[in-house]
């Protein structure tokens, strides 16, 4: 495992990054952004792959299989849905003034 305090530092900095990203988002993008961040935690897929890859017993393999299945669904579904929502932002974006909030 990453050394205790180093882990805390990473956690803190990543958390601030997340706050900063969302802080000034126009309402119009809330749903696509929620969907986009939903896609990003689909990265759980790599963890599930490693767990399944290292599974020995049947029970571990079954749970690992479920994990990879769920995680891949999260990643792929999250991507498709987000991309479709953002498709909608193609036309006429130039004339649109951004709202302050």
């Amino acid at each position, binding site marked *: 495992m990453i050394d205790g305090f180093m882990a805390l530092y990473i956690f803190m900095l*990543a958390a601030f990054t997340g706050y900063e990203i969302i802080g000034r988002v126009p309402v119009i993008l809330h749903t696509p*952004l929620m969907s986009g961040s939903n896609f*990003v935690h689909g990265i759980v*897929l790599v963890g599930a792959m490693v767990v399944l890859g290292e599974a020995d017993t049947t029970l*571990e393999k079954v749970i690992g299989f479920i994990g990879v299945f769920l995680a891949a669904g*999260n990643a792929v579904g*999250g*991507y498709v849905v987000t991309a479709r929502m953002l498709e909608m932002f193609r036309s006429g974006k130039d004339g649109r003034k951004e709202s302050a909030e």
Partner: protein
Amino acid sequence: MSGIDTQWLVKAAYFAAAFLFIVGLKRMSSPKTARGGILWAGVGMLVATLATFATPQMENFILMLAAMGLATALAWWSGRRVAMTDMPQMVALYNGMGGGAAAAIGAVELLGDGEHALAFITLAVAGSIIGAVSFSGSLIAFAKLQGWMRKPLRFGGQQAVNLVVFLATLALGGLLISGEAGGHDLILLFFLAALLFGVLMTLPIGGADMPVVISLYNALTGLAVAFEGFVLDNAAMIIAGTVVGAAGTMLTQLMARAMNRPLSNVLFSAFGESGGGGGEISGSMKPVDAADAAVMMAYGEKVIVVPGYGLAVAQAQHRLWEFCQKLIERGVKVKFAIHPVAGRMPGHMNVLLAEAGVPYELIFDLDEINNEFPSADVALVVGANDVVNPMARTNPESPIYGMPILDADKAKNVVVIKRGQGTGFSGVENALFFNDNTRMLYGDAQDVAGKLLQALKGL
């Protein structure tokens, strides 16, 4: 390549993925760059996934590819064919799957034997609880939005039961951490308790509050992924999970604030049960037919459209925009007023209108448009209810008192397209519908928009 080299390759790929995720999310937070943002994040996901295959000492590749192929096919198919109006529940579903995956990782780590540091087991247990709650909770949220569960389920002593289940989950987790007891039965019981808590916690929450709940579960899944990332020593999971956890928490707060409801209220109070929260409404609802309403708007100077969830349900956005285009051709000024929580999620209505082709210049936020209502000849409320209820301004007894609303009641005339006479999603009676200058146009929003269009063509 030696084992060390491939390990380096995997780590480099995870670093690149973490970078691409952050840049992608950043780009998604501005309308100009939003479309490219998902591509950046997508590339990050692809890089990380491909590199993971190179992780040393992995087996079960056939199982792995089968699970991935199956999930990809199902998710791709469901994600492509779902209607734009049903997006929120799909987000809930995919989010729940991510939470379930985090819980599965935790389960395997807890099953594995061998001595582990206290921090390791604690994080594995915490990630498992959060992931499992997010999984079952999101599935309930999906079922509710999909219309499989119409009524919030509430019973006496519900809070107490939930608290007991929650404490039991924590106690079982504590037992696992302490190492006093172990074994498959305990682990199974632990996960069942966590899953049960997710279900119980979500059941009493009404549909109108679902966006906040989904956003909360989204943040929780991120956190669970980060925790399991620490357990697996996986930097990509730690960074991406933590960023989403923090971003999701922030987004949840923004949503709750837009509805003027503290998060604790959403989660722990039965909403809309008070049956209107007192306050007598005088007057009656006055119906109007489509032809009259069309004339009213055609000969007005300014029409402000207030779309709500009813528009989304009826898929009426295209038909409505056609009608508005005809109005614009006649020289009527048409504007769209979007409440921050119109639809099912903040920004959901913007997406639907964008899909129909409504230009952004015509779409306005609450703050931008509210002082324009007095100068509007007609406010056309399409399937919106609580967000135009003037009781939020006037009646301190009302459960929605204090929520910022669109002042549609201040327009010279109000036309409300509504399916029936019932109350809105929150179950609160709407004083706007009883006003003297309000006319009710009953029917499915899609049909009514078609009739309005017909009437307008006949003029």
